[in-house]
């Protein structure tokens, strides 16, 4: 059903008039021009499209945009503050915790959600929380190291 959906995107209010069944991924990428959120599998398996919805990680390829009405969405573009990288972005950069970079936005946002919920997770808890995000290049060990170091340095904010 075509309707106007209002929500908070990266801290600012937005309104889109679209079919409310439309997946959030397509609204972000093609209605709002935020291409940092990636299409990987289309079936909520790989995690490349992960964004934050009210601080929880969700797969935007599976979320109808109608469900985000009145809520807060954060994408990879919304993590930087005044040109300062988010601690997890900084940690991924410092550890070279990526290769092709395609899964990276989803990885970082999934990790942000983890640290918001649990600021000092154990290595095993990080592994469990990240396990459904796929990376083909094999940056896994560095991603775990990056999250661990960001957690040690003060967490998600």
């Amino acid at each position: 059903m075509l309707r106007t959906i209002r929500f908070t995107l990266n801290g600012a209010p937005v309104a889109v008039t679209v079919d409310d069944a439309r997946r959030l991924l397509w609204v972000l990428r093609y209605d709002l021009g935020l291409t940092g959120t990636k299409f990987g599998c289309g079936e909520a398996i790989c995690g490349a499209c992960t964004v934050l919805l009210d601080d929880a990680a969700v797969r935007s390829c599976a979320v109808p945009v109608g469900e985000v009405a009145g809520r807060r969405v954060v994408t990879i573009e919304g993590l930087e503050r005044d040109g300062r990288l988010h601690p997890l972005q900084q940690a991924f950069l410092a550890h070279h915790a990526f290769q092709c970079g395609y899964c990276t936005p989803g990885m970082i946002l999934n990790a942000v959600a983890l640290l918001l919920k649990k600021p000092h997770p154990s290595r095993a808890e990080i592994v469990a929380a990240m396990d459904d995000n796929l990376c083909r290049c094999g940056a896994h060990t560095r991603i775990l190291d990056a999250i661990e170091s960001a957690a040690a340095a003060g967490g998600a904010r």
Partner: protein
Amino acid sequence: MSAGGGVSRRDFLASLGASGLLVLFRADGLLAQEPGRLPARQGYPSDFNAYLHVGADGRTTCFVGKIEMGQGAMTALAQLVADELDVPFESVDMVMGDTDRCPWDMGTFGSLTIRQFGPVLRGAAAEARAAILELASERLGVPAAQLQTRDGVVSRTGDAAARVTYGGLVQGKRIERHVADIKVKEPAALRVAGRPAPRKDAREKVTGRAKYAADIGLPGVLHARLVRPPAHGARLRGVDTSAAEAIDGVRVVRDGELIAVLHERPDVAAQALARVRAEFDHPAATVDDATIFDHLVTTAGEPQVLDASGDLAAGEKLARSVFERTYLNAYVAHAALETHSAVARFADGRVTVWASTQTPFGLKSQVAQALGLEAERVRVITPYLGGGFGGKSASRQAVEAARLARLVGRPVQVVFDRAEEFFFDTFRPAAVVKLRSGLDAAGRIAFWDFKVYCAGEREATSFYEVPHRRTASAGGWMGQQPPGLHPFAVGPWRAPSVNTNTFARESQIDVMAAAAGADPLAFRLAHLGNPRIVKVLRAAAQRFGWAPKPAPSGRGFGIACAAYLGTFVAACAEVAVDRASGNVRVERVVLAQDMGLVVNPDGARQQIEGSVTMGLGYALSEEVRFAGGEVLDRNFDTYRLPRFSWVPKIDSVLVGDPAAPPSGGGEPPIVCMGAVIANAIHDACGARLLHLPMTPARVKAALAHS
């Protein structure tokens, strides 16, 4: 051939040519930058201006036909330029894979970027520096011999007045000066290469600003979804697109076999495609993932001998025990997280295609041919690739986007969904290795008879010293011969041939070591002469803490070694096998590598970690299921990639001699993964796995057998 020092660029290029590599050089660099007048044979231009531009702001832009797919070429090539040109690494900007702006390149594959193209780029930068030095000498009125270059500045030591910046001197213009026979720097003189460098792509990739082909937003773009056959070999019988056309804003285009629905929104185009009624004649499936191996052996033809010495019959007579094993590996997908993507715009008789491709120049020719255009009317731009691994050497999606853009008169985006990605993937071929070998009374290898079907020839010939030996191969990794061999496309997958050949060879070595009651490392060393292989084996074993013991020792330790592309690798692994479930957990892997000079040690370690992790997949879980030409795996729910919880502790050991020329590092570290895990499984529980991937069911079956 030495890339290090003391060899002029010209000599180096000549030696490349003499080594039989496909590298052709043209005298006229200017002409080489004008694609329309290019001859059929292309090569790297000799004019350094094709690669380098010094801006008035002092920043250097480097143009290369290579692409960045995660392997770190952007960073390592910038390191080479910074060193030879004497400019800060931070001041080098890379432009990659744009066929209008970058000099021709064959493509980014085969770990050639540093090994083969690196010397070309270094030579260009060295000559540019020499030309700048001459120009500065004339400007300053100081003999060149008294001038030095450092950080983009030419100066005379101790003379503050005699100083000019590259930017001030060159002013963003072409450098109309050429200097013959300039030598690249000695390894010891390198300041940037040989040390870890921060990745050039890091900031863009952690902020989401990095652009991939599907991220190129063009005004008026239409998203296309194409009608696809249900199976390779299926023929379209009829199609009814009326229900799709009824959707507001949907356009349907048909051009021969190409049938597409287009819409301004990708999801609406997908909905429209779901309403297309297409009927296909579906050929009966004749092979599947269980019967494929017999099919390959009977269809591939008689293996052709690649290498032979001694006398196999005499070797068999010497042998006290003979070991006959057949090794199998399944088809494996590339499964990059980014699916094949492209956006094409057709305007004023010219087409521009932004594509996820490992071969922008090859794609340019393909698009020109498909559209009946002269090559000069086609431009391919390659943004970042979301993974390649050999799978993006084929770029069907980009040709489709270009054709459609011309047909509809608007920009068109084609992005494969995951099912299309699996369907059109050029899989690593399923393959069979039949191996017979024997041990003599002294416990030495008496003979070695290696026949490989369908994996290809690379590294099929063993480096172990065996008096009586033969290596033969049928069917290559491109799957060219004979037609009908494979039910779908196959092609290059990270280290073509070598994963299969290494799995078979290194497993068989362990089979014999166990029969001889010998420690697997000692058994290898007793049959090895090449000091570089010995060196990596010893380095891996030492870091791992390898204590000699015949297998199966119950410890779950495995070892394997390989050589590929001038790089030498050895791996040790420790695994735990759950006998009840058949599940294998890889606890740790040590990977030692000798790749000569390491341009970016941190980049090399990233490639090793990535290879070990990716290699877990083809070793343990990855296998394409199919029935005839129908690919049954369509997403990551059934096709299982390695995940965080599988990843072992990975320790990389770089042992190369920095005075040796740099060789490839993107592929060699993956090739041991099948054998090192198979050998570790055997050591853990006595079960010998001969079939990749080593799924829990196969492990249990092998346990029941052992």
